[in-house]
């Protein structure tokens, strides 16, 4: 997303607005959880109660988010319209999104086909996905390295976590 043609003011505006949005989202979720929780309003005697500190922290977050959005809007007025290339941003987040999805898929994979096969399949696929460029250059040596890599990774994780520590991932 780093665009060399982007001027400093537009960049500042983009960052401020993005940060404001980021902290604002946390604050919104927080307040939602805070107000949806009837038990926080109970009487706890001398204890100021479990609702006090969350309220303080959420207030700071809310004010901070508003200040950031305000700074962003001011910057936006000064520097002119934002130049965000949404298509590029979308393309840029494809790989991270895929990686996160694959992280979520690993445990269910273990549940369905037990640890060793799942780890072989999963690590093999990931390694192939990450080494597409090298495959074009040197398919032979890349394949060998992947096979060794898969075997070593599977053996070590199995031995250390599943066998030795007894993590229930059979």
């Amino acid at each position, binding site marked *: 997303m780093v665009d060399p043609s982007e001027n400093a003011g537009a960049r500042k505006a983009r960052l401020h607005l993005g940060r404001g949005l980021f902290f604002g989202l946390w604050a919104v979720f927080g307040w939602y959880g805070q107000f949806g929780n009837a*038990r926080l309003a109970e009487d706890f005697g001398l*204890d100021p109660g479990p609702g006090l500190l969350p309220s303080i922290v959420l207030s700071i977050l809310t004010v901070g988010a508003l200040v950031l959005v305000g700074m962003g809007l001011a910057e936006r007025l000064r520097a002119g319209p934002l130049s965000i290339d949404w298509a590029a941003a979308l393309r840029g987040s494809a790989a991270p999104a895929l990686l996160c999805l694959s992280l979520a898929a690993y445990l269910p994979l273990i549940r369905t086909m*037990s*640890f*060793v096969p799942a780890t072989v399949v999963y690590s093999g696929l990931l390694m192939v996905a990450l080494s597409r460029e090298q495959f074009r250059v040197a398919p032979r040596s890349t394949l060998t390295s992947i096979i060794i890599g898969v075997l070593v990774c*599977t*053996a070590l994780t*199995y*031995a*250390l976590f*599943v*066998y*030795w520590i*007894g*993590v*229930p991932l*059979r």
Partner: protein
Amino acid sequence: MRIPSVFSALGFGLALGTGAFMAPAAAQDFPSEPITLVVNWPAGGGMDRAGRLVAEYAKKHVDVPIAVINVDGAGGATGVRHVADAEPDGYTVGILGASIISSQYVNQNANAIDDIDYLAFFGPDPAALEVRSDLGVSSVEEFVAKLKEAPGSIKNGNDAPGGVSHIAAALLEAKTGVKLSKIPYQGYAPTVAAVVSGEVNAATLPVHQLIDQHKAGDVKILGVMSTERHFMAPDVPTFEELGIDLVAGDWRALYVPKGVPEERKALLEKMLVDTTNDPEFQAAAQKMGFVITPMGAAETTEFVRKSDAELYPILEEAGLVKVRKK
């Protein structure tokens, strides 16, 4: 065994010789795979040490390794849920404590006491009443008299509401008609530190937590909340001896999910009862401060139901019944 032998051999090499890797016996035989023992509190705590002790000494009575894992969270409820939802094949066993009784009434997501099958009893961990020596109280009678004179004048260190030592304090208040200032701590170690630093003047912790301070004279254990005197402090009377019907504290029991075949349950029960009856196990447990009272499945179930029935009114009185109201 669902893993290729190459890997089991590799694992064996790295295992440095602890827990022999057992070859699968005849397929029908139970147990033929490692058994998992789930501890519902973090590694290093009292429950964890009890669980690992059982697993270590059960090796003598069973041919497969027993792996101890910790599934903690939500005040012990997550670990119980983990076992209750596990495959009922007898390969997942859990150890739990008195927290199951209170958590079922505060947490909708916690399991109720009848959601699982009990196998065996480990032992009680009776609470006691400890006071700092500088409080100037040397008996339960004086303690009660002091509180009657000035209600709330004594600060008692205990768990958060619903925790074992909090319930012990609440029971003490109910049975003697006094009012304590109950100061919550998270776990026993911080409570001990608070007694030693003088932030609180009393505590309702298990005996072995403050036995050193008792022997050194900084703290006096006034009474034990159990039916028998504690082996570590034989000079301290029980509340029953003092004419107060007060039995409170933690206990530990082993259990499996509902639906385990009867013959497997019977085998596991026998293994665990044999373990808890083993004199070597009992000696090791005693050194760690655990009281061991072996009981089978039927007695354990009865014990849990009985203490549930006893505690319900106390919990309700303390405003700790939020769900599953009776």
